[in-house]
């Protein structure tokens, strides 16, 4: 567990460093995510002790993912003026954008799957 947490922090550190050095317009933790994923794929045969530790730390964090964005969310109180003034428009964009995104995503997935001729719905 501790070893897993250290691994996650290490990959975040790698990601943040890479973003700082290269100026990539991508958040450091996302680069860390990609690097960890590639490392897991490359090393799955060898690191038999470390991978379960990483999995344990990951599932502990992901099981409470929601908790971690509460502190920032509370900061919206300071923005109450903005939210109040533009509230109607914000709500409209929120709902229409969600429906539009759901629709085009599902249609693209279904259309490409049909084109490829795979008929089974069970994965």
């Amino acid at each position, binding site marked *: 567990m501790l070893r897993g947490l250290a691994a996650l922090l290490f*990959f975040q550190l790698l990601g943040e460093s890479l973003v700082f050095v290269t100026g990539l317009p991508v958040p450091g933790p996302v680069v860390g995510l990609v690097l960890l994923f590639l490392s897991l794929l490359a090393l799955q045969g060898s690191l038999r002790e470390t991978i379960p530790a990483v999995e344990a730390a990951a599932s502990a*964090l992901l099981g409470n993912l929601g908790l971690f964005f509460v502190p920032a969310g509370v900061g919206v109180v300071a923005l109450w003026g903005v939210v109040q003034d533009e509230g109607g428009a914000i709500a409209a964009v929120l709902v229409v954008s969600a429906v539009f995104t759901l629709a085009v995503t599902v249609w693209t997935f279904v259309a490409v799957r049909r084109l490829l001729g795979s008929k089974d719905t069970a994965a």
Partner: protein
Amino acid sequence: MRSPVDLWVYLSTSPLIWLTLTLCTWIGASEVSRRLDRNPLVNPVLTSILLLSLVMTVFDIPYQQFFEGAQFVHFLLGPATVAIAVPLFRQWAQVKRLLLPIAAALFVGSFAAVSSVVVLGTLLGLSEDVVVSFLPKSATAGVAMAISASLGGSPSLTAVLVILTGIVGALIVTPFMNLMRVRDYAARGFAAGLTSHGIGTARAYEVDETAGLFAAIAMALNAVATSAVVPLAAAWIGR
């Protein structure tokens, strides 16, 4: 003996009370959500934010003071984002089997999620600061907040918009897909996870196991895709 008022003055300036309150509020809100069968309307993130905001307002606590304690929780967003690599790694065999539909839906969906905000936001006259904070709303909160911060948006506003997008998507996905007569549960789940990240994924798992799996895959992939698409959209509106 010191008075309770002295105790309050002492405690309210220490990080301990705000960290403890944040954790306890979260545990309580999660318990309520679990008892109500994870109804998206009592999403524990939203309930916790509303309750803590109420406490801050009633007791007139500056956000900075609250954050001194809550920052220890906030810090874990980074490693939690990196941790998304693990479910993606476990499900990689599934992803490879349907690589083309996944890649196409990811590409189209991530552009749709971001560009619809630019077009609608401009049409409805949203201010540029709000639009920038709005762009990454379909990505999981940690990633969305980091993107928003890197473009000069407001991570707090982004966090709330992300959660609301999650709730809206989780509420409408099942009736909407039934209306559209989509019976492919991999596709339905993928759309739910791409649009509404973790909240959509939790909803998809309730409906169907396959849908949940593809929702989790979509959430992980869209975290990466949104990081690439949003800077392009921000450049488009001159940011």
